[in-house]
């Protein structure tokens, strides 16, 4: 190679006590390319990126930028060397304007006045140059997630960074926003920027990147040009085995036994509403509700679980359900658990009146712990320790526990809202397996998701929700990615 690589890792290792987060990691990234870093949760991809960004220092090995060895002791060093990072959780303060959030990054003496006017003009022209549309004067809390992400990218660009690291940038975006993001990233690449993108969505890797490095268990297990590989290969490298093909179902939908019925349901919540929702869910059926978030999914969930949360007297129509209703909430940390409390207390939530777990006003703590232990073993929630605070579990294990909590109660109707958001491939396989098992045992499942792949692998039927209305229905043999995607976006 004549041109030195923009980034090169040579034999980089990082240990946390006994854990080898990175061992002997070597890879390079060509200048002016989009490079994917893939791997399951805990595979070491984030550690490597944090070393590059100066958040961690390597225990062995060396990082090179443009052929020169570098050792960053803090993100400030990294930023001075024109490396910028967009974190998965944005570094933006909500009550302040986008402009102020960007200005915070800039150096200057403590008592100097903020150069709001000049900087606004500069940032505006920078944004236009890269084709971003941004209103710098709006408060961050009024911006959509996609816009907030653009602010983060603009923040980095305003420091003339040459290298951009994006950590799971599409995790929080709608399909349309993802397309916009990719368009912007390609444009940045064409301007000569080098972009690293950490992700576990392989389709995105295939459509966006020029090359890809695969991490597994702290090591680099593969380095490919994107044109030379495909999703299946990458998945196999990530997991270390071929992902199991789900078997075709051996049971059939019990068409004669409906267990959940929505009839002419209209309701509103906040500033959105649903109108004329009609559907029937049967035993042994998985009914998918497709749609970009914010199109009324939350109203459907609340119409079934908690009508009092809806806007006063906005609810009309009838909802009838048979038997026990169980649910996994769409945002587990907000609605489903108490993150700082031990796992067994979280397991108890929703079953606190079960006589198995209480005597009068007292809890049978020992029984709760042993039952939690049993469930954690059965559903392989690691580490198998019910006394740990819930937040100490990884995302995949958190979700497994939430799923286990619901399904172990053998509900008749299951509302699975975004059941695999933010979890890795292994946990996705597991959770999908459990959902199928519940179906085969006679439950009806309402699967609310914005992931087309998930909807298409699991559902028997899919309804598309757009702006509060059901705009399309697909039966299993009609499933088609393009048709589904279009109707989710409101098209025909």
């Amino acid at each position: 190679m004549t041109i030195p690589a923009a980034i090169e890792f040579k034999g980089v290792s990082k240990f946390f006590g006994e854990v080898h987060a990175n061992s002997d990691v070597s890879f390079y990234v060509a200048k002016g390319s989009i490079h994917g870093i893939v791997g399951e949760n805990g595979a070491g991809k984030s550690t490597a990126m944090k070393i590059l960004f100066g958040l961690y220092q390597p225990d062995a090995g060396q990082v090179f930028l443009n052929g020169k060895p570098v050792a960053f002791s803090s993100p400030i060093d990294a930023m001075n060397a024109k490396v910028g990072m967009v974190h998965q959780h944005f570094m933006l303060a909500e009550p302040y304007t986008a402009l102020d959030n960007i200005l915070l990054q800039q150096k200057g003496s403590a008592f100097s006045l903020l150069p709001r006017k000049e900087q606004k003009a500069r940032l505006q022209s920078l944004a236009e140059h890269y084709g971003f549309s941004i209103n710098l004067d709006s408060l961050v809390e009024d911006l959509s997630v996609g816009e907030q992400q653009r602010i983060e990218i603009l923040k980095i660009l305003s420091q003339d960074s040459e290298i951009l690291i994006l950590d799971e940038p599409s995790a929080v975006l709608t399909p349309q926003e993802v397309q916009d993001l990719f368009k912007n990233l390609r444009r940045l690449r064409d301007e000569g920027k080098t972009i690293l993108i950490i992700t576990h969505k392989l389709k995105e890797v295939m459509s966006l990147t020029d090359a890809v490095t695969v991490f597994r268990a702290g090591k680099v297990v593969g380095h490919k040009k994107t044109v030379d590989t495909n999703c299946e290969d990458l998945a196999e490298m990530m997991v270390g085995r071929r992902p199991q093909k789900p078997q075709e179902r051996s049971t059939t939908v019990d068409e004669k036994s409906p267990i959940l019925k929505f009839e002419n349901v209209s309701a509103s919540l906040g500033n959105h509403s649903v109108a004329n929702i009609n559907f029937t869910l049967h035993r042994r059926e998985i009914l998918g509700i497709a749609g970009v978030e914010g199109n009324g999914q939350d109203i459907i969930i609340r119409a079934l679980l908690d009508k009092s949360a809806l806007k006063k007297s906005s609810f009309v129509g009838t909802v009838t359900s048979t038997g026990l209703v169980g649910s996994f909430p769409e945002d587990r940390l907000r609605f489903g658990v108490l993150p700082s409390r031990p796992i067994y207390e979280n397991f108890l939530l929703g079953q606190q009146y079960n006589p198995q777990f209480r005597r009068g006003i007292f809890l049978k703590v020992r029984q709760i712990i042993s039952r939690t232990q049993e469930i954690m073993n059965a559903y392989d929630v690691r580490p198998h320790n019910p006394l740990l605070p819930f937040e100490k579990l990884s995302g995949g294990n958190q979700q497994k526990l939430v799923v286990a909590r619901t399904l172990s109660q053998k509900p008749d109707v299951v509302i699975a809202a975004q059941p695999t958001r933010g979890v890795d491939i292994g946990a996705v396989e597991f959770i999908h397996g459990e959902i199928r098992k519940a179906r085969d045992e006679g439950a009806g499942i309402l699967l609310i998701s914005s992931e087309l792949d998930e909807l298409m692998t699991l559902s028997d039927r899919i309804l598309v929700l757009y702006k509060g209305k059901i705009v399309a229905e697909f039966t299993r043999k009609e499933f088609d990615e393009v048709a589904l995607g279009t109707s989710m976006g409101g098209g025909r």
Partner: protein
Amino acid sequence: MEFMLLVFSLLFATLRLATPLIFASMGGFMSERSGVVNVALEGFMLAGAFAGAVVGYSFDSAWLGWGAALIAGLAMGAFYAFFTIELKADQIITGMAVNLLVMGLIPFITKILYSSTGSTPALLLEDRFRFEPMLMAFILVTALTYWLYKTRSGLWLLFAGEHPEALVASGVSVRKVRWAAVSLSGVFAAWGGTSLSLFLASSYSPMMTGGRGFMALAALIFGKWRPLPAFLACLLFAFADAVQIRLQGMHIGNFEIPVQFIQILPYVVTIIALAGFIGKSRAPKALGK
């Protein structure tokens, strides 16, 4: 004519009585906006009131007393900062401990200095402040408002309490910002205290703050952690206080309303304001973390 006189005297009393509250709530503002809960305002005020009264009396100068309050406040603020920021002690508990410490320490020092545990000796009437602290309180609010929204360090303060990680990512030390803010919080609150002992009165008397530190905190919350609205809230509480003083000794028919009953008025207004009219008041997100 008499009515106009009444209105004027009530207004003037409001401004006077608001002075200690304004200083203290600006102190609370600095600390809480940087992310450190401050229930120690009461203690800071007492320390300032005492230090100001002692030094002011010893040198026959209110201004030297004012300077002494500055030093006492800085010391108290730094003490609180050390425990909450360096040792990461629980902020509420540390704050209450500071209050108790000051309440115990003052009679101890008074005993040594004046062989009594009660009030300090009074300044001559011509030595105490006439209007200066009132004026300084207004200047402080104006200056803080300008500083907060216009300067770089104002932005640092806002982010320290709202999104400290973002501040760190910009290369600014959250620790330093909080140290500065909490120390200044001590100074402002101590000035509030000494406005009591050198402006509203002419000596320190035990527990003379009477919960004004907490009232200032309430004003801050009622004002949604912003300087100007907090200032207005202080005026409201002070107005209740002024009315209360005016109403003392009032009769309904032949029945004299007990003075204690009238004295609760400002506290009742505080509670009603906080419980009833607060609307959506959002604390800095990183407050207490």
